[in-house]
């Protein structure tokens, strides 16, 4: 199922580009945002099928963005994958509780990332078994 739209939110432009290349190569359409406010407006405008969200962002962290997205009815059910360099011991649970589908720590293996995205989009599994 190619062509689904994914919004990537990350303030690091290089990381943003890398993810962009990786996801486009896998056939997804990509939209991107580099801060919290932009993330909300792009999400409203583009209505992505999934969002890859960093926690440390200018203008409000990932949790604020998530809360905002959850409160906007047309966007409330978009699956969110947290991709952050922050400590998973502290943040994984917090992210799941706030409604994230998964928490991935940077740097993430592309295979794992694509698996999680596919699952979030409800797509059938690829050849790889899910390993978490």
């Amino acid at each position, binding site marked *: 199922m190619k062509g689904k739209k994914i919004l990537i939110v990350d303030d*690091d432009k*290089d*990381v943003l580009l*890398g*993810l962009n*290349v*990786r996801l486009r*190569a896998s056939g997804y359409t990509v939209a991107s945002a580099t801060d919290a406010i932009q993330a909300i407006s792009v999400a409203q405008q583009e209505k992505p099928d999934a969002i890859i969200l960093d926690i440390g962002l200018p203008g409000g962290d990932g949790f604020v963005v998530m809360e905002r997205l959850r409160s906007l009815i047309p966007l409330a059910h978009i699956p969110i994958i947290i991709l952050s*360099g*922050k*400590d998973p*011991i502290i943040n*994984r*649970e917090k992210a*799941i*509780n706030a*409604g994230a*589908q*998964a928490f991935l*720590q*940077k*740097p*993430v*293996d*592309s*295979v*794992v990332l694509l698996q999680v995205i596919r*699952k979030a989009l409800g797509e059938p599994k690829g050849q*790889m*078994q*899910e*390993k*978490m």
Partner: protein
Amino acid sequence: MIELGTIPIKDKASIVEARNKIRLLAEDLELGSITSIRIATMISELSRRMLATGQPSVIKVAVDKGKELFELVLEFTPGQACAAIGIKVLEAVFDNVKLSEKADGVQSIKTSKVLLDPQFEPAEEFIERERGLLGRLTREELYLQLKEYSAHLEERVEERTAELQQEITERKEAEAKLQQLSLVLRAIRNVDQLITKEKDRGKLLKGSCDNFVETRGCSNAWVTLLDEFGKLVAYAESGLGKDFLPMVELMKRGQLPTCMQRALKQSAAVVTEAPVSTCTDCPISINYAGRSAAIVRLEYKGKVYGLLSIDVPRELATDAEELSLFHEVATDIAFGLYNIELEERHKQVEEVLQVEKNKLQSLVDAMADGLTIQDRYYNIIHQNEPTRIAFGGDHLGEKCYRAYAGRETVCDGCPVEEAFKDGKSHTAERKTTIAGKVVFWANTASPIRDASGEIVSCLEITRDITERKRAEEALIGLDHMKSEFISRVSHEIRSPLTAIHQFATILLDGLAGDISSEQREYLEIVLRNINQLRVMVNDLLEVNRAETGRLTINPRYVSLAELVSEIIGTFRVTTTKGVLLTTDLPKGLPPIRADPDRVREILTNLIDNAIKFTPEKGRVVIGAEVYKRNPNFVCVAVSDTGCGIHPKERKRIFEYLHQAQNSGVDGRKGLGLGLYICRELVRRHGGRIWLESELEHGSKFSFTLPIYSVANSLAPILTEKNLWIGSIAILTIKVFPIKERPLTVTDKIASQKAWDVVNGCIFPSKDVVLPIMPQTQLGEVFYVVMCADHRDAEVLVRRIRDHLKRCEALHNARLKWTISISMLETALAGSDEPSKEVVKKVEDRIEELVKSV
């Protein structure tokens, strides 16, 4: 009225006995030496008078002792010739010692002795008989008879006259003796008075001697005090003057005359009837003409102080009564000396104490630390100079908390209060603001006990620890800064690392066009280095956590087999090196009680190392089995066919910052943190980690983790006390998806969340445990075991329900849950080891429940 018995007053000896008894009694009552002597003297005097006059007398002595007033009642009844002694405690309380004397009849004693002839007949009867006779006789007969009777009467008159003369003589003698006795008694009384008021030894001795000469009709009297070696200590005399000097000279040389030597050896007085003619070695002779000398030792409570010598009229020299009185005076003088000695010793001790007290005071004032002593009511009874300086002057008599802390009640955690409670030393830190300056104190309190061991006060040492506290705070701040720094750097490094990682994999995956095999090789090197860097960053964070006490574990029910296969999976995904990774796990391996995230970390670290040091085509095996040495543990081992580790290094390999000498194929040493973290994590699980290795043949890292045991988990609640309560409640909480579907990672995280929520509900109670969390295909079930009745369990269930309803993670994961209660009776309290049986019963029951799910 306390009857103290009667003492028959028959003779002089019984007077002495009565006197001694009274003195002992007075000592027992602690009436004081002065009073006791006065009473004793009075008794002596009274007894003697009574004995002499035959008149009854009563003596009443009121004595104030502290706040109790004693009335000493002494009754003398001449018919029975005895003294009844009693003590009556009066209700009235007087301020001063009062001595009142009511000696009925004593003030006007008259010597009266009734003289009766047992043959004497009354005159009237006699006349009647004579009349009868007259009527019957003739004149001649009457004349003759009258003449005969007249002669008989004459005879009788002569006899009677002689008898009367005899009696008059006897009476005169008795009177003389009585007079002498009166003198003696006065002398005793004088000496006794002297003893009670004289605190100077010299004056006592001199006064005693003078008394003998003045009131007793002695021409001389002398006293010498000798020490235990017979050396002259002091002397006094009266009536001798210069004549005594030769004796003094003699005594100074230690040459005592025979009579003195003898007197020192015996308690009875030594009497020399005619000193002038019989004594050869006495240097005094001049005053003894016609008189005898008596010498007796001064003894009290077994101690001999010296000798007392007087001269007496020769006719009294052998009189037992006289000698016993003499002896009595000697004892009284010795008693006086004893009292003076006691007082002197007292004074000496007091002086020594004063010196010690001064020394201590100087010492205490010279201390750098503050020192206060408080009584049981926290009143300051002593403070040293540093305390006065630190807390603005003298606070003696004030409450400690008011003076030093400005409070109205005892400070929280006061070490003095603690010390009073358990009798041990306690230290507490305190912060005060003195003149706007914050000062930290370390207060150490030690109880002070009296001779009987009772705590009477408390010593408190106050040390200013502001400097130390500041340094500590600075250090803590610095340490905190370091931790913060490491944490931030580690996280910030991740962003560039991520970018490098992303583009390296993009290139490798050919997303930016085809690459040559050489380019591929180099890119793989880049990727490998990125992975190393990632591991280092992770290790750094982990060590930081360990150091700041945040390296916590959250142990739960874990299936080791599942966990190992999951980890192996991730390695197959990421490993490119040609090393064979296999497992060796027996079937039926018991579940472990561990934090799965941490076990994953330990195993990842060990497998990473094993792969790093194993050449291509080598093998890495992950094995596990029940630990043979301790079946409560599972032993997990990671073995490789690598280069092995040198014996010298094996000991230190788990140490902090230890870097391997023989590095991996890339020649890098690493941070030396990985194995240290492994060891810390294993230890936090209660296990141990060790290494077996053979050079060139490979290494085997083994560690143990506790086997999951319901019994161990239940141990905290299955106490004897709880078992007596009689029932255990098992709450079964099931978490499962609304629609039947396999569980996802999200589901697991959500049910973990639910587990935490339940845990949070029961957290404060020690009588509740969460023993088990087995996984089932259709959801997760866990149990709460609590020791309580059904109603308590329902209260807890209600609380858990309320909290689970609000758990968003469960809603988001679309999971629902149910709770049920099952009760288990534990009426096993009678048996010896009920807990084992009950544990078994609970385990069985939980097993049943698990099967029924």
